[in-house]
């Protein structure tokens, strides 16, 4: 993986522009005409799902707690709780020949005070001393020849576990107890729209004609890639997102309503927010009931190659944020940012505007911890804006991911993956566009050809970009549960967060790891 792809995959796509050099010296290239894109066909074949892709991230320093180990440990902890029973009584079924004397004898033996039979049952509920161990009492009763069976009144719980094919590779959801959160809210945010302000989303099936009219270099002094001329690029809806999920798409890179994804980042992020779930296919999403508003404010490499009129500048990002707020989004996911330059005042202003319209905003904290730890200018205002949360990343061991920027503005942590510690599967698995067919420039000028965005596969990505959609999806679920104000959502997330690292709020994990289940459950009167 070259550095360009790593940047794109770690959510700092804005930086790509800085390393992307376009040459405009060829008159032959210019003869092809100006930059344009035209919708040639708004139908097409359904997207092709190519399944799980081999890991392209080197597995370095494997270690930490494995996904399966963590999941099993957590389920085991849950099992300890779920073994609990209603104290003060047991279930007992006497044999038909037990008789009154047998029942009385059994009651005396275990110091039972009362026995009664529910109208629906062929067994009895025997009341025993409140401090007696129901399991021991049951065992004592079972030893009697006149007892057919006896057992504690074990407590049962709903148990939702998605049946998606690769769910067992999604360590990120068990790590935050999502299965029990889904028990509380099985509709998972179906009244909420989440705007994914990103590189676009694979949201429509179509063919779009572009004009590749420049030769270019990806890096200074690197090989020169030829202009491709007019090309037709096929797109398809990501099969695991489904066409019915999208509302009010908008592209501020091309200034139209076709925010197709020519990068793969936004589609992956959207999957974590709201991938189709429990459909036996692929992977699960967190708030799988939500509608997704694709808002494109980040230009991928192909957008540059095709001469898009706008790049992912602060004003474009701000425009996307305001658009989302004005068009029905209740949550905005911003897995984007920049570390260069000064404060992003215009974006801050747009975020304040969105929050004033009741929109919660989740922003990636940045991926610079191992590269100088420069702050993300897009996220650094979060502590001073209630309703905006800057999200750091943890790996599956629940330790801060090596790249996750540490800074006082980090407010909360969520799974973002740590492939350095845990290898490729230590990332966040979601479906996105087949990168082999999309990023053809990575194979060098000889193999460079037009992309296609109608085939899909499942990839492990890592980054605070991947952590942020967990928080956005979480916010959508909280909003549906009844916490309707952005500042209150932020407060709830912080109040119930699992403190990690140094006690209290810290620059690595903020207030800690999100806890959807306990937050959705909220407060009783005394507990």
């Amino acid at each position, binding site marked *: 993986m070259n550095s360009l792809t790593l940047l794109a995959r770690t959510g700092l796509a804005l930086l790509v522009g800085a390393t992307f050099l376009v040459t405009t010296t060829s008159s032959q290239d210019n003869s092809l005409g100006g930059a344009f894109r035209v919708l040639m066909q708004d139908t097409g074949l359904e997207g092709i799902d190519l399944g799980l892709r081999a890991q392209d991230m080197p597995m370095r320093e494997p270690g930490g707690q494995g996904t399966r180990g963590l999941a099993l440990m957590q389920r085991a902890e849950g099992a300890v*709780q779920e073994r609990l029973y209603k104290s003060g009584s047991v279930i007992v079924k006497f044999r038909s020949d037990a008789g009154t004397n047998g029942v009385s004898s059994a009651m005396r033996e275990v110091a039972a005070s009362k026995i009664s039979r529910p109208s629906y049952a062929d067994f009895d509920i025997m009341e025993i001393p409140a401090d007696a161990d129901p399991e021991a009492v049951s065992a004592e009763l079972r030893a009697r020849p006149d007892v057919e069976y006896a057992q504690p009144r074990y407590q049962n719980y709903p148990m939702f576990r998605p049946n998606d094919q690769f769910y067992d590779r999604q360590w990120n959801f068990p790590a935050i107890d999502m299965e029990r959160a889904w028990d509380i809210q099985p509709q998972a945010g179906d009244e909420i729209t989440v705007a994914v302000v990103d590189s676009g989303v694979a949201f429509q099936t179509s063919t779009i004609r572009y004009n590749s009219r420049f030769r270019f270099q990806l890096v200074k002094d690197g090989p020169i890639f030829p202009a491709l001329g007019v090309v037709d690029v096929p797109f398809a809806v990501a099969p695991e997102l489904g066409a019915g999920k999208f509302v009010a798409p908008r592209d501020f890179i091309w200034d139209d309503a076709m925010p197709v994804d020519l990068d793969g980042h936004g589609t992956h992020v959207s999957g974590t927010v709201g991938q189709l779930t429990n459909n036996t296919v692929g992977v699960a999403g967190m708030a799988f009931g939500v509608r997704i508003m694709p808002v494109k404010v980040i230009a991928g490499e192909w957008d540059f190659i095709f001469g898009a009129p706008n790049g992912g500048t602060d004003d474009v990002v701000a425009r996307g944020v305001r658009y989302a707020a004005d068009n029905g989004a209740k949550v905005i996911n911003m897995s984007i940012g920049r570390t260069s330059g000064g404060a992003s005042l215009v974006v801050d202003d747009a975020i304040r505007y969105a929050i004033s319209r009741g929109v919660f905003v989740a922003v990636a904290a940045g991926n610079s911890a191992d590269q100088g730890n420069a702050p993300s200018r897009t996220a650094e205002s979060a502590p001073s804006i209630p309703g905006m949360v800057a999200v750091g990343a943890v790996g599956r061991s629940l330790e801060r991911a090596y790249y996750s920027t540490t800074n006082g503005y980090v407010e909360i942590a969520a799974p973002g993956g740590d492939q350095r510690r845990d290898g490729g599967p230590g990332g966040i698995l979601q479906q996105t566009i087949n990168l082999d067919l999309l990023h053809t420039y990575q194979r060098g000028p000889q193999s460079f050809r037009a992309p296609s965005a109608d085939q899909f596969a499942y990839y492990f990505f890592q980054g605070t970009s991947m952590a942020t959609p967990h928080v956005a999806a979480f916010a959508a679920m909280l909003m549906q549960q009844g916490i309707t104000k952005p500042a209150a959502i932020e407060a709830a997330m912080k109040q119930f967060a699992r403190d990690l690292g140094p006690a209290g709020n810290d620059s690595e994990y903020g207030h800690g790891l999100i806890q959807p289940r306990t937050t959705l459950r909220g407060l009783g009167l005394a507990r």
Partner: protein
Amino acid sequence: MQNALRIVAVALVLAAIPASAQSFADGKFGGRGFGSFGNISFQAADSFDAVLGRNAGPIFGGGGQVLLPWGLYFDVGAWKFQQDGERVFVGPDREVFRLGIPVEIAITPLEITGGWRFRKWQRFVPYGGIGYSSYRYKETSDFSDPGENVDETFTGYHVVGGAEYLPLRWLAVGGEVGWSSIEDALGAGGASAAFGETNLGGTSVRLKISVGR
């Protein structure tokens, strides 16, 4: 709860003993049982209001009373408050967001009271007392692990004042106002922690009907 009921039952038996077969008002030995119903307003008003949608609610109960010479009396009574509500989140400005998750609150106090009856009139007897309170507090929610529900007992004290009217020698109808303080029963978690309310007690108004001699 079982212990409370046992104590009430014993009190009722004691009350039924015709110790001296004297009337309620003549100031000699006597015993009787009573039933009561009324309303309680809790001190933790914001917390109850958040979770139950109100900070007061109906109560009902009963007990037994022993009347002693010189106007003294002792009684043991229990009552119950039970309401359904929903779990909440209390926001930064103490704004309450209801989450739609059912929660049931049940409070069962056992009260032992000693006091003085003012026997100035034949059929009208004002009284006042003070006593020990034991409140069993149960909070049960959907989607809870057993350890997340609450079933605990807290103690405190109460004072009561009231008056009763005796239309018959064996029947009294009275009104009573009670105030209880059960400190530190709340406030460690839940909405009560958000509101900083720690006292489970409250002010009750009860109608009491007593039967006995």
